[in-house]
């Protein structure tokens, strides 16, 4: 089934702001294979979602689907910049090639900013139950086998951080251990980051349901 293969491939494409795959967010609208042409339509919660994130998700989707058919077409529906983005994606033009003078560079820095936010939030979630006196010497092997610990390891890998069992858990945005004196403030801020990401994800799901008159899903 092509649909299953497509969804499996797109499970790896994240909404960078919401730190969740576009599949579980409901952003994949339709999948069609006609001869050698695989066409996937994407949709977003509003017509005014930021064009940079919209471009990133569409372009990542095309990359993820390349091996599934000789020709892959990814179409972003109902966005204020659909025409521009769809042309750019079809031509593999890159963000700068698509937006010309409106863009100063590709989107790797933007992606990195949000991978760092996702990491900070996952780190705080993974250590929430750990008493402060144990935090300073905490290593990855000390973490319980929970989904939060697993999520933290994945986000560390994405950023190229050390995932060895004896690697320190509490690190900053570039992977360096956090200064012990700053731990309470840094973790408190990381908690705010997590609240923000979760809140946005919930709002976006709700808006998508409203926009496309979808049934409530779990």
């Amino acid at each position, binding site marked *: 089934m092509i649909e299953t293969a497509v969804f499996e491939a797109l499970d790896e494409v994240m909404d960078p*702001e919401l730190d969740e795959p576009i599949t579980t967010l409901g952003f994949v609208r339709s999948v069609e294979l006609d001869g050698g042409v695989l066409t996937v339509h994407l949709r977003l*919660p*509003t*017509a*005014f*979602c*930021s*064009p*940079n994130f919209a471009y990133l998700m569409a372009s990542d989707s095309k990359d993820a689907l390349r091996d599934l058919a000789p020709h892959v077409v990814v179409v972003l529906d109902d966005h*204020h910049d659909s025409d521009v983005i769809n042309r750019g994606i079809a031509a593999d033009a890159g*963000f*700068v090639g698509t*937006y010309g*003078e*409106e*863009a*100063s*560079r*590709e*989107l790797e*820095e*933007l992606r990195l*900013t949000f991978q760092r*936010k996702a990491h900070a939030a996952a780190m705080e979630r993974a250590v929430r139950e750990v008493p402060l006196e144990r935090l300073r010497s905490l290593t990855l092997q000390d973490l319980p086998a929970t989904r939060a610990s697993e999520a933290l390891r994945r986000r560390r890998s994405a950023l190229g951080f050390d995932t060895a069992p004896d690697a320190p858990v509490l690190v900053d945005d570039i992977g360096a251990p956090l200064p012990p004196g700053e731990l309470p*403030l840094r973790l*408190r*801020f990381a908690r*705010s*980051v997590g*609240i*923000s990401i*979760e*809140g*946005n994800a*919930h*709002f976006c799901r*709700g*808006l998508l*349901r*409203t*926009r496309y008159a979808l049934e409530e899903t779990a």
Partner: protein
Amino acid sequence: MYSKDGETYFIVDAHVALWDARPENQRNIHGKQFIDCFYDYHRNLSPESEVWPYEEYLYQGGDRLMKDLFDDGYVDHAIFQPAHLGAFYNNGFGQTEEAWALTSKHPDKLTYNHCWDPRREQKGLDELKRDAERFGLKGVKLYTAEWYGDSRGYRLDDPWSYKYLETAQELGIRNIHVHKGPTIRPLDRDAFEVADVDHAATDFPELNFVVEHCGLPRLEDFCWIATQEPNVHAGLAVAMPFIHTRPRYFAQIIGELLYWLNEDRIQFSSDYALWTPRWLVERFVDFQIPEDMTEYAPLTVAQKKKILGLNAAKMYDIPVPEGLDVAPVEQEAVSVA
């Protein structure tokens, strides 16, 4: 004024609009997309009983606004915060003349803030001086995602932005309401980032910067700069209606703002006509942080009074009736080295 359980709350709605998004005013498809996006916000976050038909949502007019805010909505004073959106609407989205006529008729109830666009450079700067005099401006609303010619946004720390802020300071316009949107120039940056507000707030310490929807979707970045800049305030536009759909998230927003800022720097608004104030005021007065969320202290009546009106009244020199005021705390919540 709203009274409940022996307490009376003075209500300032710090962010309202008189907009016209009817088809005849839509310049292009984006005019429709924009109001449709607002309508989805409205439908998604309102209690069912408060949802308006689409046609009513496109345009309200002055009489309806007065009724919704002052007759039905408990509001004592409201502040217009217009978005121009000239690239989407023929006569603009916020209706300047209509809002100003209404303000002139009810100066005790309404304050008119205007908007500027730094990309209009000297011409806009000259206009700002005339507007300041005509409207007696105390504040402005800046939508940094506004489209203008080939540009789809600007930053508050652009050189021309600084010229406008300098002029505002000279003209006595002290309250700068900043509204972030999805586009900015260059487009590869995060449009919701608030670092430019940080720079401007540092360089213009005499001005107040009210960041609307408290920086959402970047609540954390907003809190981080507001902790360090005492002249940065949180506007609750768009955040308020979460009180209905997601009260625990709303508790987190309020809890975070009280933790990183303090109770003197948070302002209520309905964001009319996105939502109406009546149900928001009622719900907020009844609201409490859920007991199991022990990381936040319970909300006090004094905090609610400040947020619902006293903070904005102070910023805008709006007289508060005898006996309804509460003293400010005059201290910052968090100290960051």
